[in-house]
């Protein structure tokens, strides 16, 4: 194979793209990242004081010196020259400021909704709507139950008609993949227009 050049310099770095997995506290973000990733989700800890914002912005965050934010991320290789990274956004409200940094350069987002408490994902939806970052909704049916139809959920979340709403299970790889594909289909449809 031509690509078997032994020197690191002969090995072009693959392109990297990312998608965010967002939503409220405990909606299944880490679970989803783990389900579709080809590696065990990696974690990295970010001290709050340096998480990409001015120190002034930390006022009101208790324990600021000691607090760290865990970022988890997974990887999906798309052929030899392209890698898709999935980043789970920190769910706790006091970490939302990090989303700005995470959102830069993202293809789009999957906003997870726990069907038992959809309101916990309102803020995530607002965040992406305001920044005009494309997103799809993945309704995580805990215990495999989906008591509502996608249209009912779209209405409850006051989402525009074109926003895809998928009923899925964050523990199932194929189910997570389909949510990601729905996002890509949406991105392709919008950009082809």
């Amino acid at each position, binding site marked *: 194979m031509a690509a078997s050049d032994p020197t690191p310099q002969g090995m072009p770095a693959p392109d990297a793209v990312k998608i965010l997995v967002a939503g409220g506290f405990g909606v299944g973000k880490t679970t989803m990242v783990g389900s579709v990733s080809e590696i065990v989700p990696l974690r*990295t800890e970010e001290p709050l004081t340096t998480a990409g914002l001015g120190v002034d912005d930390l006022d009101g965050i208790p324990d600021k010196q000691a607090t760290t934010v865990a970022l988890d991320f997974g990887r999906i290789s798309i052929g030899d020259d392209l890698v898709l990274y999935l980043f789970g956004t920190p769910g706790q409200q006091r970490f939302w400021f990090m989303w700005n940094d995470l959102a830069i350069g993202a293809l789009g987002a999957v906003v997870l909704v726990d069907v038992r408490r959809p309101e916990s994902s309102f803020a995530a939806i607002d965040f992406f709507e305001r920044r005009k970052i494309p997103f799809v909704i993945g309704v995580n049916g805990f215990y495999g139950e989906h008591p509502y139809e996608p249209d009912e959920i779209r209405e409850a979340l006051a989402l525009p008609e074109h926003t895809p709403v998928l009923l899925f299970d964050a523990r199932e790889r194929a189910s997570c993949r389909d949510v990601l*594909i729905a996002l*890509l289909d949406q991105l392709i449809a919008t950009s082809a227009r």
Partner: protein
Amino acid sequence: MNGGDAAGRLVRPFTLTGGRTRPSRSDFTLITTVTAVDPQPVGGARPQPEHTRILRLCAKPIVVAELATGLDLPVSVVAIMLCDLLEAGRITVRQPRLISRTPDLDLLKKVRDGLGRL
């Protein structure tokens, strides 16, 4: 939360960066790819042990987020050390494909097809 633990862990990384808490460059996003220059430049300051660890980990191209995980250090700390290495000519940097207002349709289709094969 393991509060006490986290407090103990936080102090140390910053001793590695000479007390600096912010990168001097914003060149390092989570998915910026870094690669050690091979062979390494001769002369200049000898790299510190942590720098040497980074150089080992990025002998093959690796993104910043994975590097931080491999080093078990916060991304922000790693970014500062990467700045030093970049300034010393010891690494090369490749920025991610940023998605602008006019997205790259071919790229999107490629990701879509790749996911379809999963």
